């Protein structure tokens, strides 16, 4: 800590001006970053996620084996020559599947989660803030989506349109926003009646300003956790759809690998376990980051 405050008494008007500029205002984002860096689990999650991103975005340029090519004897166990992760029932290289299939998995998971958060946040915040008939209508719509069997509904959407990365992401996003919406609504309902919202209104803030700049930052911690859970959930959902054979059969993904090899689970564990481990690690990394973000952005926790 530097102790360089000049005595306020000697501040002439020029010095006064200088002093106004002087206080080193640490930007809230920088402070949050510092807090995040102090959280070992969160940093671990971030490193893990960066590793996975490198593996799926950069490594494919170096490991150019086509994941659909039949390269070795079927069901070769890991450690076999040329195929460190073994091969599946057709003799496809599992390492190539991991390397090339991650992109689709992450893209679908990320896009679906973003879509779920956007829809859920819009619906939930408007319903919670305005209440009354707006709340009534939006919540009935939410309930409609909630009572639909999600997997079935997603299957219908994928079946109606051509199964591609985009439609799968859309289908997952459309069925999984309700949790975000309900959480956002409850947070907005709670926060909108708090005194600092009243006081924001009393200094002349508009509804839009109150929603975005007053209530949303205060509702962020639980929503952030929910959003990261949504990413994890979407990745698992994508795996589920692929497992059922509903994903694009021409695009390799981790879920597709598990799905296509499911009959060989008892005989060749590696064909489903290895992509399963990668899905698990990705979801874990995202969850750890979400938890760390929650702690870092909550000023009340910063003092600890």
């Amino acid at each position: 800590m530097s102790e360089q405050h000049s005595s306020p008494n000697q501040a002439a008007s020029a010095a006064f001006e200088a002093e106004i500029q002087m206080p080193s205002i640490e930007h809230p984002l920088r402070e949050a970053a510092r807090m995040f860096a102090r959280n070992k689990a969160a940093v671990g999650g971030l490193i893990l996620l960066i590793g996975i991103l490198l593996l799926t975005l950069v490594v494919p340029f170096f490991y150019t084996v086509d994941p659909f090519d039949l390269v070795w004897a079927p069901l070769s166990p890991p450690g076999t020559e040329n195929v460190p992760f073994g091969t599946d029932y057709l003799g496809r290289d599992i390492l190539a599947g991991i390397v090339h299939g991650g992109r689709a998995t992450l893209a679908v998971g990320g896009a679906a989660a973003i879509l779920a958060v956007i829809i859920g946040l819009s619906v939930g915040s408007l319903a919670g803030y305005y209440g009354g008939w707006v709340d009534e209508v939006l919540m009935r719509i939410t309930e409609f989506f909630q009572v639909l069997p999600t997997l079935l509904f997603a299957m219908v959407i994928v079946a109606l349109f051509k199964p591609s990365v985009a439609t799968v992401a859309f289908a997952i996003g459309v069925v999984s926003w309700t949790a975000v919406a309900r959480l956002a609504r409850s947070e907005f309902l709670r926060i909108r009646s708090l005194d600092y919202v009243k006081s924001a209104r009393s200094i002349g803030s508009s509804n839009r300003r109150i929603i975005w700049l007053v209530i949303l930052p205060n509702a962020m911690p639980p929503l952030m956790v929910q959003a990261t859970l949504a990413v994890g959930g979407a990745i698992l959902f994508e795996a589920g759809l692929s497992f059922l054979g509903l994903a694009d059969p021409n695009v390799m993904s981790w879920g597709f690998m598990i799905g296509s090899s499911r009959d060989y689970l008892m005989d060749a564990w590696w064909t489903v376990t290895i992509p399963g481990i990668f899905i698990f690690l990705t979801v874990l990394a995202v969850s750890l980051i979400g938890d760390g973000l929650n702690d870092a952005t909550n000023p009340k926790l910063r003092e600890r």
Partner: protein
Amino acid sequence: MPERLLEIEDLRVEFKTRDGIAKVIDNLNISLQTGETLGIVGESGCGKSMTALSIMGLVPIPPGRIAGGRILLDGEDLLQASEPRMREVRGNEISMIFQEPMTSLNPVYSIGDQIAETARLHEGLSRADAMARALEMLRAVGIPAAERRINEYPHQMSGGMRQRVMIAMALACKPRVLIADEPTTALDVTVQAQIFDLLNDLKEKTGTAIIMITHDMGAIAEMAQRVVVMYAGHIIEQADVGQILTDPRHPYTQGLIRCVPHLTQTPSVERPPLLEIPGVVPALSQLGSGCSFAPRCQYADAKCRAEMPPSTAIDSGHDVACWLTEREAAA
């Protein structure tokens, strides 16, 4: 001739409840002059805070409804003003500070940002200019080491400090009217005195008129020049602070004054017993046609229970709504 800054005429506010329509404020007439501190006194639930919210245009509608009247700020009727116009008024011309400094500040922004927000909203200042204004305001409200504390968050400050921040926020745009809704109720007694001094001091410097809402006659004695006593949505007595404290006419006002403990120099001296006002403020939907205070009033007679007393001037600037004054005049 002092200028009439804010004038409330025949204001009526109603709330829809399960038991029917509750007249939260009935025929309220108040005028506030430039540089004046007006005290509004009364128990919980007598319409003080609703008066404040009406002036701010923040009465929750529904279930609330402005049933009639006018609120004139410099001749402009705020009840007819559009919402965008009201947003300009709030914080810029009329500001408000709340009872609970512990929860009235947004926990995720630094106090500097929150004070600067007012200036940015109304004067379109850049962040740096607004922060300079915030620093100036923090100094004006007497926060020590303001240049360090400007970056602190509300949870790092005590209640008294937070109330100072609230005052800084409210006064950042030099409003003409400051509504203080029980600003010291949640604070320690010593801190209360500091806040009163601060408000009086700032009023002198900026000329802001203050509407001070409280149930504490001590606070009124400290702050106000004129006093309005409210009961169940009505003004029952209105006078200069000296008249109210020395010559209260309405039994309710007398009761409010008697229930404040007084310190005496020698504690052994026999002190007058502290008297309470029996009962509670009646539910607004259950008001009959008579004086709303009659059920709790020791002087009440049949006339009080049957008919609402009109507000009568018993002295220059001293209005009372009570049948007693008429009885006394007749006697």
